[in-house]
């Protein structure tokens, strides 16, 4: 980021959320880079940006789409880059129909299930049959081209599968079916006027932004985008990111120094916890969890990840999977039993935290582990979360202090309101004290995929223990109790490799676990030796490794994540500090930092280039490309795998080696980002008849009612937009900050931020109290009246926004407590990522503190009644304009899209 010439921070408040990361922005700015902050609020990031542009929460695609339109229609795109490195020239299937024709929907929508059939979005085929590489009819892949196959998350390190890499291209870009032309048509209606109308951004600001990024892109210059939960936490969060990606590809800002789209993530190991996922839909290394009916056999499973005939490194998924199974089940995993593939449980749909919550409320889930997280405060619709926990038989909370998720049964808001009585709650609660980061050794993976090892400084106090220790011992205990079991279903547990070396206290050695993750040779001449890169993984069971993308972190038996050469060593890529996956590359797709001929685009932006004399790629980083593949190489694409990558296919994890302007697969809600209004919005979508994302995941329940959208009856009851966010001084749900006096005193009370105009309209005073009411709950907060929150003019009407930090919760153990903003948030999810929409919702705000007890419930109910909010409101009618729908539903009972791009 420090190398960028222009930095656009949108959907993220970097200075507040990542002050230390922001030093690189400061540095770039000191060097002369322009910094632009696009956010609903004037934040601490805005305070030192060159310009802050206020945007209505949830309208980012309109702005980004308009920028794409601006770049395309003014011929400002980076021609050589786009032609060579993206799929701009690729032809799209004739069956594809864009939103232009269908009132805001793409072809393939099934209103009955609320899902798309992705087949018509595919690339055009030589044979003209349309499917994404379906040369032979409906075999394998194509039989299941339903939306649930499109698993963005599973492609965390690359794109989704294509059957093969042979695509039709028109290098002149003139064919109306080229991605380029499709893009042009799709974004034609995203005009600066539309930006003004829907985002509340003046044409002047738009021009400033557009000029800044286009003038700072090209051979000599680069622009970088930074985003955070301001983009992900929407019903079309993944598409927000996609639209930035399209823009960046068009401008040539991917794979080069000071370029790209940076995810600014909020937790120490949030990247690590998707790489080695504690997520329902993934196995380590972005291998998918098998799904019933799709992955019933091991062959189906492998074929589903990547066709052997596509380009790139995903074609070796079989080796990665078999190595994983060998790591888990050791000698029990053999070729004969498909390497214990059947030991893996099968998914039948999404099993995310909100589906699990519903499962708890239905008494299906009995036991719940809450590990260093605080769902009673941090999850959307907090009341639903707490009520769900009261249905559990048992709950294990592991944390440093008595967080609200451990104490809701005696001091939660529902006890106060009378909905729950402590003596009626049957849930057994175990509070297990956890170890802090200095009381255990282990690795975190930070936001740029860098693994850094933490050494243990001292032993945890009292009965506190690490998760590693706890789960290791729990596993031992469970296995001991089941030791005599002959039950078939206990075999995966009993045959599991669970024999890590332990210290004097019986605690497992974390380095041994890291070694298992890295992988080793199980047989052959090198048996027992650690693998040094994932290319060594074999399909014959001779290697074991728990997470292929991390292979190399324990190369040569050395903990590479613990490397601590001061400053990372002399190289500009700072290689000698920690270890980055994959294979210690610091910039992904860095082949794109050179032109198609392998020369640096410019001296200024030199990074990786082709050295003719040595016959290989050289530069400041590990080339993220086959090292000796010459720029001019043009292997037969049909040979598949990395060998099929041409010398100008920098996107080595994509099935066609190109950057995707148009996503024929991988996203379940459209191949091109399209603006829909949030689930709850007081604004009508002026771009399309379709108001909301047609594929959003909704939970139509009494405890999750939605506010009427603009134009429907009762829309005046919740007239304001609220948006939630975090502050520098606190950490997420507060478990690691509200217990610390030094942080608590800096932001001691829950507050809301409103504009002077809204304050005048509602009679609110600075530092007085306000009650904020949504269809889910009512909370109270102190008021900050400030010009930092702008009242925007949207569609000619004033739209007021209410800003709510979400760090506080109701309890008595923290140094500071308060009502939780997340209680207001409804559960509506991005179908790609299953991330909830916490960045935009509808509410009302009135002066004074909220009522207590039953009166609080009455207040919320009264609002619901006045708004006419029921389980049907904005939940059932997914398609705003039914006659625009032309797609025949497919009779297939599969449940909708799980997974996605979750990068948060």
């Amino acid at each position, binding site marked *: 980021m420090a190398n960028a010439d222009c930095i656009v921070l949108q959907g993220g408040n970097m200075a507040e959320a990542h002050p230390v990361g922001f030093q690189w922005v400061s540095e770039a700015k000191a060097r002369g880079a322009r910094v632009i902050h696009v956010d609903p609020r004037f934040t601490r990031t805005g305070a030192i940006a060159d310009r802050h542009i206020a945007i209505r929460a949830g309208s980012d695609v309109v702005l980004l789409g308009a920028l794409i339109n601006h770049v395309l229609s003014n011929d400002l795109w980076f021609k050589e880059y786009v032609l060579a490195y993206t799929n701009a020239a690729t032809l799209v299937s004739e069956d594809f129909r864009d939103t232009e024709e269908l009132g805001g929907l793409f072809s393939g929508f099934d209103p009955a299930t609320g899902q798309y059939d992705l087949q018509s979005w595919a690339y055009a085929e030589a044979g003209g049959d349309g499917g994404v590489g379906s040369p032979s009819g409906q075999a394998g892949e194509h039989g299941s081209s339903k939306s649930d196959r499109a698993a963005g998350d599973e492609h965390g390190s690359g794109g989704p599968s294509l059957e093969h890499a042979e695509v039709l291209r028109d290098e002149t870009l003139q064919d109306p079916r080229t991605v380029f032309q499709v893009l042009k048509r799709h974004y034609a209606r995203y005009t600066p006027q539309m930006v003004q109308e829907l985002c509340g951004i003046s044409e002047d600001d738009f021009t400033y932004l557009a000029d800044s990024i286009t003038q700072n892109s090209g051979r000599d210059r680069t622009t970088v985008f930074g985003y955070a939960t301001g983009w992900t936490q929407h019903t079309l969060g993944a598409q927000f990111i996609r639209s930035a990606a399209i823009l960046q590809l068009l401008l040539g800002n991917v794979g080069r120094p000071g370029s790209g789209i940076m995810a600014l993530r909020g937790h120490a190991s949030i990247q690590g916890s998707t790489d080695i996922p504690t997520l329902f839909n993934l196995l380590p290394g972005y291998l998918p969890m098998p799904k019933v009916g799709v992955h019933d056999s091991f062959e189906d499973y492998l074929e589903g990840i990547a066709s052997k005939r596509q380009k790139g490194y995903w074609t070796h998924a079989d080796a990665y999977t078999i190595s994983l199974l060998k790591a888990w089940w050791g000698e029990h995993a053999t070729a004969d039993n498909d390497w214990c593939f059947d030991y893996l*449980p099968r998914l039948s749909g999404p099993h995310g935290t909100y589906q699990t919550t519903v499962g708890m409320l239905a008494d299906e889930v*009995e036991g719940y582990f809450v590990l260093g997280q605080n769902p009673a405060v941090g999850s959307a619709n907090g009341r639903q979360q707490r009520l769900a926990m009261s249905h559990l038989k048992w709950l294990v909370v592991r944390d440093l202090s008595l967080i609200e998720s451990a104490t809701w049964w005696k001091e939660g808001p529902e006890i106060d309101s009378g909905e729950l009585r402590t003596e009626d709650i049957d849930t057994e609660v175990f509070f297990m004290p956890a170890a802090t980061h200095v009381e255990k050794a282990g690795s975190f993976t930070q936001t740029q995929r860098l693994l850094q090892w933490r050494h243990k400084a001292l032993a945890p106090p009292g*009965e506190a223990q690490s*998760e590693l220790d706890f789960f290791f011992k729990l596993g031992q205990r469970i296995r001991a109790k089941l030791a005599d079991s002959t039950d078939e279903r206990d075999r995966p547990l009993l045959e599991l490799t669970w024999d890590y070396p332990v210290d004097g206290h019986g605690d497992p050695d974390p380095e041994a676990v890291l070694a298992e993750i890295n992988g080793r040779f199980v047989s052959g001449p090198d048996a027992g030796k650690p693998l040094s890169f994932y290319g060594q993984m074999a399909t014959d069971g001779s290697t074991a490794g728990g997470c292929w993308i991390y292979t190399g972190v324990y190369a040569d038996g050395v903990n590479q994540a613990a490397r601590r050469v001061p400053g990372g060593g002399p190289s500009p890529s700072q290689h000698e500090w920690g270890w980055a996956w994959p294979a210690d590359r610091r910039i992904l797709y860095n082949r794109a930092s050179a032109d198609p001929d392998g020369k640096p685009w410019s001296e200024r932006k030199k990074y990786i280039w082709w050295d003719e004399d040595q016959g290989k790629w050289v530069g400041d980083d590990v080339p993220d490309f086959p090292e000796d593949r010459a720029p001019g190489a043009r292997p037969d694409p049909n040979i598949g795998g990395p060998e099929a990558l041409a010398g100008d296919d920098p996107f080595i994890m994509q099935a066609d080696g190109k950057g995707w302007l148009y996503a024929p697969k991988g996203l379940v809600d459209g191949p091109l980002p399209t603006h829909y209004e949030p689930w709850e919005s007081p604004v009508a979508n002026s771009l399309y008849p379709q108001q909301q994302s047609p594929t959003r995941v909704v939970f139509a329940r009494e405890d999750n009612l939605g506010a009427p959208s603009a134009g429907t009856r009762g829309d005046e009851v919740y007239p304001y937009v609220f948006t939630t966010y975090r502050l520098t001084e606190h950490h997420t749900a507060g478990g*690691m900050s509200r217990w610390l006096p030094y942080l608590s005193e800096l932001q001691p009370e829950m507050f809301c931020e409103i504009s002077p105009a809204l304050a005048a309209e509602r009679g609110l005073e600075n530092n007085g109290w306000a009650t904020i009411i949504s269809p889910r709950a009512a909370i109270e907060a102190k008021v900050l009246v400030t010009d930092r929150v702008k009242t925007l003019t949207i569609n000619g009407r004033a739209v007021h926004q209410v800003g709510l930090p979400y760090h506080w919760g109701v309890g008595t153990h923290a140094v500071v407590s308060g009502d939780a903003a997340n209680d207001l948030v409804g559960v509506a999810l991005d179908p790609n990522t299953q991330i909830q929409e916490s960045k935009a919702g509808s509410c009302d705000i009135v002066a004074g503190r909220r009522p207590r007890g039953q009166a609080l419930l009455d207040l919320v109910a009264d609002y619901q009644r006045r708004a006419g909010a029921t389980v049907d409101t904005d939940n059932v009618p997914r398609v705003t304009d039914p006659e625009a729908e032309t797609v025949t539903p497919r009779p297939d009972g599969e449940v909708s899209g799980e997974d996605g791009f979750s990068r948060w």
Partner: protein
Amino acid sequence: MARLSPLEWPVLRQLRSGDSLGRGPAVTSPTTRAVRPRNATADRVVQSICPYCAVGCGQLVYVKDEKVIDIEGDPNSPISRGRLCPKGSASEQLVNAPGRQKQVLYRAPKAKDWQHLDLDTAIDMIADRFIESRRNGWQELDDQGRKLRRTMGIASLGGATLDNEENYLIKKLFTAAGAIQIENQARI
């Protein structure tokens, strides 16, 4: 001061040193003259990483008498160059927080308060419940007779603040047990 020697009386030191205004070394106390930074007295310094956000700032942990006495930024880190945000700067307090809970607590069904449980008993009880709920929520086949081999009785939330190794063990154990409802803050 005077206890040491009457000659050390600062007034006399003022006279001796000519510091008539009593501003400098003439008025220092023995404590001041012997001052040393706390971190220089540490028994050991351990390299670590900040536990808060995902920037991954380097930290130095100073330990004395098996107690953390200071946590500072690690100037050698190319990520953070020794700097920390307010949360990172507060991490010594995170470790030594006055409100930190160090004992296992257990709340029985319908109980109005916590009781203490020893660690081993707690793990044993959790293991029993794990096995039972796993069994109760077991699904061998779906309604079309296809293999599911899973349990819906157990769920887990968390992991984004945990180590890769910890997440790995959790995922491994839960998957082997057939528990699929595993989620973390990556989605929240």
